């Protein structure tokens, strides 16, 4: 304490150093959750638009009803392919399972693994790979769906259904694509130097993004595909 009667500055906090965070939580995890919250509004806008325009297209083809073009007499069947999409939905759900297993494996890398089951479950490379593979499979389904729709006569320009459907599912597909690229980068790092508990945050953030993309698809699958 020096001689001045009135201290000039705020008392520093004891022992608080440069890496201090208020909540004890990492910045980036707060950032990704804020981002996910923001994405909720993005997909809310897309989904609302699809639902608002549902049934407003002046020409077919339509998602759930067959349609005959009055000018050409050409018959279009209902466009949406529920069996294929159910399969792709299942694939995306399973990719989320693979993702949580990958995260668990990264977090528990240093734990001893004895049994074969433990070794399999504890392999972050396997589960990251599986996640990326399932994500890619989902994208494959979507590519198949898009090309077959275009083949059947619905493109993004055809009618309101086409525009809103392709834009909504396309935005989702773009998110999945970004996720797959992220997964591949992470997998490359895993192969290069191995991912461990200190990387858990990075994998956790990626996983949050991936699961969010999954829950968006859960909403899309019901609202777009199943509800007629």
């Amino acid at each position, binding site marked *: 304490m020096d001689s001045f009667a009135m201290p000039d500055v705020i008392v520093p906090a004891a022992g*608080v150093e440069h890496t201090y965070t208020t909540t*004890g939580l990492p910045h980036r995890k*707060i950032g990704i959750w804020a981002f*996910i919250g923001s994405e909720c509004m993005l997909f809310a806008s897309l*989904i*609302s638009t699809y639902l608002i325009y549902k049934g407003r297209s002046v020409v077919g083809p339509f998602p759930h009803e067959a349609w005959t073009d009055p000018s050409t007499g050409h018959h279009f069947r209902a466009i949406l392919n529920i069996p294929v999409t159910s399969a792709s939905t299942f694939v995306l*759900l399973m990719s989320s399972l693979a993702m949580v297993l990958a995260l668990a494996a990264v977090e528990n890398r240093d734990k001893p693994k004895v049994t074969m089951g433990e070794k399999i479950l504890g392999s972050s490379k396997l589960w990251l790979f599986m996640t990326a593979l399932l994500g890619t499979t989902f994208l494959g389904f979507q590519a198949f769906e898009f090309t077959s729709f275009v083949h059947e006569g619905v493109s993004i320009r055809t009618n309101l259904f086409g525009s809103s459907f392709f834009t909504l599912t396309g935005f989702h597909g773009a998110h999945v694509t970004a996720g797959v690229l992220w997964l591949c980068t992470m997998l490359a790092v895993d192969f290069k130097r191995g991912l461990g508990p200190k990387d858990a945050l990075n994998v956790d953030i990626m996983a949050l993004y991936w*699961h969010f993309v999954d829950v968006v698809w859960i909403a899309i699958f019901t609202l777009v595909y199943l509800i007629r």
Partner: protein
Amino acid sequence: MTSPESHHGQTAAALAAQGHLEGAVHEHPTWSTYWKVATILTVITVAEVWCYYVPSFVASVWFVPVLLALSALKFGIVVLFYMHLKYDHKLFRALFTGPLIVAMFTIVALLFLFGKVAVRLGLLS
């Protein structure tokens, strides 16, 4: 300067004193939880698709509410277990549910507004 360990310890102590770590308990679900969740998700998905293929159910008033409820259930399960919101810091729950509520409200309001237009025109014309 003190060692990193003691620094960390001090910081944590200071934080704990302020109650900052409240709710930050980090107990993770186990592998078996993950598998169980996956099974439940699959079952719900199968149920949803099954609903779609039962014409009498599609025609009933329950079709849309049941599908919405099932998908909300799936949504919730993934968010709570796979995204760890059930176990994670309450801050994350707030960061997600706040925007989600605004988003849901916006969707509902928009659907009301666009549905309402048709009804009103019917009344007036």
